[in-house]
């Protein structure tokens, strides 16, 4: 029961912040959860997920044919 309550609070806090998951304020929240190991796992996991997506969603090069089609559709050279 206690754990669910803390997890709910954690979600509420992070939702209120809408902060970068590794922001100072989120780090503070994480430190304050030392009595709830599962909350720390939860928080760390979210941070890991955001970080891996930041790396995996890298900039994609525009293919040459896409550029050609674009200029053609806009009647530009």
């Amino acid at each position, binding site marked *: 029961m206690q754990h669910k309550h803390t997890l709910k609070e954690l*979600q509420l806090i992070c939702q209120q912040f809408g902060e970068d998951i590794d922001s100072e304020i989120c780090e503070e929240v994480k430190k304050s959860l030392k009595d709830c190991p599962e909350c720390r796992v939860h928080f760390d996991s979210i941070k890991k997920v955001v970080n891996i997506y930041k*790396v995996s969603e890298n900039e994609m090069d525009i293919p040459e044919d896409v550029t050609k089609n674009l200029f053609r559709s*806009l009647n530009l050279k």
Partner: protein
Amino acid sequence: MKVIDESTIELAKTGDNNSLSEIVNTYSPNIYSLSLKFMRNKHDAEDVLQETFLKMLNSISKFEGRSTLYSWLYRIATNTALEKLRKKYPEQFEIELDTVDYHEHSGRKSFELPYFDEKDLDNSDLKIELNSAIKKLNAKLRIVFILRDIEGNSVKETAKILNLSEANVKIRLMRARMFLKENLEDYYKQRNDHAA
């Protein structure tokens, strides 16, 4: 990214083809990349790209310079992607996602994910899983996650681009993060079960 100077923008507003081409050449790679993140397939991303620049051609004469030209295009591209996603997945836009149910995830035990680095992405299974999870994510949540967590816009900027309240951006962001986390946890649990 190169910045287009004011004189080029002024010429483009008069319909000067060289200036318009310079703008398209400069900004199309970034707009394409952004569109691909939203749409998750090359065909739809190309449609968003073309529509964005067509809208630019039709309305650049009204561009007042209250933001940078790139911010203006970025907003057009985001809203064009949103329109397309709404048409393609109307059922996803009917779901109420702006209130929080704290019991939604309460029965679920968190699973300790490994630390990732760039090398982990050489594992094509993981790459496929990440792509599949973000594809499955409700489009309304995906757009917020990409603008906020991937593109690095602030909550305020994200809210402004999407014409949402900041509170709704935060709720959608939390839901998106939870969804992606749970998908990745399931992937690692299954991997561990197979290995055992």
